[in-house]
């Protein structure tokens, strides 16, 4: 096996491919966090009074909270006064086409393989690219506008559609929800907003690529996605971040609202800088993602492939309020080197005959620590609720760890809740079997891992599935024990 191990070590040791910094002049405000900073952010963004008040309330609440200690992750404490809470590329002028976008910026996207140009022409994907904190280019907007779909940056939505933002902002993740959600509510800089009107099926996959750029700049994204009655939308979120030595905090909030008979599919491929082999640097990814199946027969699907970040701490959740609503969670979380992930989901069954499915695959390699933490709650009124959960761990190497903390809370006797978990490793016999048939150890590991994750990958949109497999190929094929 020594051969296999060395290949794997080489594999696992591969450095982050997407580490680079673009030289773009950035407008920044002083370090630190206080009411003045929040007022400044709000002023720069020309926000209405109510939003500023909301931010300030969130900030006041945040000050009363303390950072949660319960996650199974260890990291150096973040100094919240040492963060610049807003930075934006200097506004040049209103942009009417991609040609006007800073070529440096476009080149950055090109390096990441997500050239807006390319995508616009070839892939039929509308891209709302967030570079640091402000959206600089939004494509396919006109096409979507024809169907009545609003897809724009959050600040634009605040300007153009304040009534929608005001109606739904904070209804799924209130500012008082948790420490990082409160922080985000106070200082969020930008993000994406999407509204799909009644009965409209969004014809393309909507996608946001956002990157963390300018040094020391925490990014506080806010995404709000509303599918009105009978609407359908599939949303892709993908991230790569440049290599940094200092830890960067990312505390995003994603809110999904599915009204009656609406369907939202939210897919994420996350590949932020995980830090180097010793665990230096890397992104802290503390995200609050939650969807509310507000109306009957609505459905929300979360699919995530988490391969990056030094610390991942997120629980995309579903509140199944409408009768017969469906929540799904498919996840692959990979931790290599010194990465730590504490991720999972919450399924809150409130409506009758609500159903949820959880498939979580954790892969730990190197010194990685992978935790699944989930909650399935069936409230007393959720007659006939049904849940199936499966969480599997794959351990690669003997210095990593896999942990599961599934909470199950059932308060209705008609509910049927099942939870299964297993832990395994890539067997020497499996590798041997492949080798014997002329498949290299590297490919064999790849195959086995992809097989392990297949159930999740097949939930991803096509182009993401390919990217996800490649990502695992690069960052995952840790060691065979």
């Amino acid at each position, binding site marked *: 096996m020594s051969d296999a191990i060395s290949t794997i070590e080489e594999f696992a040791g591969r450095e982050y491919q997407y580490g680079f910094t673009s030289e773009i002049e950035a407008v920044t405000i002083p370090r630190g966090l206080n009411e003045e900073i929040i007022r400044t952010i709000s002023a720069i963004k020309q926000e209405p009074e109510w939003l500023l008040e909301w931010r300030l309330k969130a900030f006041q609440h945040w000050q009363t909270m303390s950072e949660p200690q319960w996650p199974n992750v260890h990291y150096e404490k973040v100094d919240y006064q040492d963060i610049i809470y807003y930075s934006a590329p200097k506004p040049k002028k209103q942009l009417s086409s991609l040609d006007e976008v800073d070529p440096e910026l476009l080149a950055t996207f090109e390096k990441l393989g997500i050239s807006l140009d390319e995508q616009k022409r070839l892939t039929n994907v509308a891209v709302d690219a967030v570079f640091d904190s402000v959206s600089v280019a939004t494509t396919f907007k006109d096409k979507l506008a024809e169907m009545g779909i609003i897809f724009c940056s959050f600040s634009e939505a605040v300007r153009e559609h304040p009534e929608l933002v005001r109606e739904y902002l904070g209804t799924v993740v209130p500012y008082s929800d948790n420490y990082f959600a409160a922080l985000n509510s106070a200082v969020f800089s930008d993000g994406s907003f999407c509204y799909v009107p009644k009965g409209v099926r969004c014809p393309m996959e909507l996608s946001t690529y956002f990157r963390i750029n300018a040094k020391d700049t925490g990014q506080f994204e806010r995404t709000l996605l509303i599918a009105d009655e009978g609407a359908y939308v599939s949303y892709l979120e993908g991230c790569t971040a440049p290599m940094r030595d200092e830890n960067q905090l990312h505390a995003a909030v994603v809110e999904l609202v599915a009204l009656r008979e609406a369907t939202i599919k939210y897919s994420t491929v996350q590949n932020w800088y995980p830090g180097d082999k010793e665990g230096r640097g890397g992104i802290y990814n503390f995200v609050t993602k939650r969807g509310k199946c507000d109306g009957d027969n609505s459905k929300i699907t979360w699919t995530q492939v988490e391969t990056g970040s030094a610390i991942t701490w997120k629980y995309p959740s579903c509140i199944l309020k409408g009768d017969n609503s469906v929540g799904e969670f498919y996840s692959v979380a990979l931790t290599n080197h010194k990465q730590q992930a504490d991720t999972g989901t919450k399924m809150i069954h409130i409506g009758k005959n609500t159903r949820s499915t959880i498939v979580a695959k954790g892969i730990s390699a190197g010194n990685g620590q992978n935790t699944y933490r989930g909650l399935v709650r069936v409230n007393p009124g959720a007659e006939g609720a049904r849940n199936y959960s499966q969480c599997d761990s794959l351990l690669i190497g*003997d*210095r990593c760890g896999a*942990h*599961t903390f599934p909470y199950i809370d059932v308060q209705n006797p008609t509910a049927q809740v099942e939870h299964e978990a297993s832990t395994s490793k890539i067997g020497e016999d499996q590798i041997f079997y492949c080798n014997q048939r002329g498949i290299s150890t590297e490919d064999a590991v790849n195959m086995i891992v992809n097989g392990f994750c297949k159930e999740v990958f097949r939930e991803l949109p096509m182009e993401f599935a390919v990217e996800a497999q490649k990502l695992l190929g690069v960052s995952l094929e840790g060691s065979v024990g």
Partner: protein
Amino acid sequence: MSTSQTQTELAPYLQAWQNFLPDRAGEPAWLGTLRRNAFEQFEQQGIPDRTQEDWRFFPLNALRTTAFARPLPPALPSLQQMLQNHPLANQPGPLLVFCNGTFVPALSRLESMAAGIRVQNISTLLTDSPELLQPWLAQQNERQAGPFAALNTAFMEDGAALVLEKNCRLQQPVTVLFISQTLHQSSFTTPRLLVAAGENSQAALVEVFLSEGEQTAFTCSATEFALAAGAQIDHVRIAQENLQTIHISSTRAELQGNSRFASHNMALGGMLTRNDITVGLRGSGIHATLNGLYLAGGNSVIDNHTAIDHAMPHCESHELYRGILYGRAQGVFNGKIFVQLDAQKTDAKQTNQALLLSKDARLNTKPQLEIFADDVKCTHGATVGQLSRESLFYLRSRGIGEEEARAMLVQAFAADVTGRIPLETVSNYLQQMLPLRF
């Protein structure tokens, strides 16, 4: 935990402690030290509240609001009557009866044992041969065992001890009855069980908690097992106290190489029941089995916490817990499995299944795996549901009334756990104790 609030909560215990200590003057000095350390631990940790993860679902307010007195001496005649026809008091083998914390020799049967086997109550052993107890009593991670294990050690009055020397085997099970007689006042007892099993020894123990009377009682029990290499111990624990009882127990077992340990934890009564079972696998080739059945109706809360620590390679642990909840009962199951870095080739399996039989019953379950070794087989599963409609229909279509059909299905559900107890009298007894209506 030294806020003034905590101090008022602990005041009754402090008072009891000050009265208790002078009575123990005749005890060996090492025991005094253990007690003092334990009480210090208890004082430091205080009565846990719901902000602590391990106590999230367990309402301990009753312990804060009720001042439990130390119990009165036992009243024998009614006790005798109670045990006369009790199936567990009359099964063959040694019997130790404790009432309100005191040993009752008149109702116990301590037959003469073969050499190398000592079955005795702890206070007799302490005067007789304290050197037998000293290496084992309160020697297992007292600090981590929580405030109630410490409370037991501090106030321990009497209990049962089984000390087996190398290669000694007990043919008949040892039955230990702890009875709280709560005829007139609410009281607080600290039953203790200690088992030290030498190499290749073997025994089965049946530990039973009963009550007489309908007053509130607080049973704070602690059980310790130390199994040397190759020892085999079966432990059946039956808690069947009245519906006013608060029962908090801590069971700890340390297992050496190639030993076999099986715990059968049957919780069938009480108002608030909390069982903590911690098993440490300290050698290779160990088999540990943790089975449990919990049955709760009314407003009862039953909380089972188990933790299995796989520290060494080539061990197996199997865990099956089944719960039956009806009325407004709340069940909690938390099963931890740790697989340490060195514990390669571990095979750990954990299952928790619960039946919710009424609208207001509730279950919280949290199977928890923490794995640090890569070459292991670990699975856990949890299911929560109701009686299958098809099965009910099958029975009804054969002329069995609904109530009876439900009872039959529940009996069958329970029998899968009780049937694993290797003592037939005990498993039959348990099946008979299940209610006939849900």
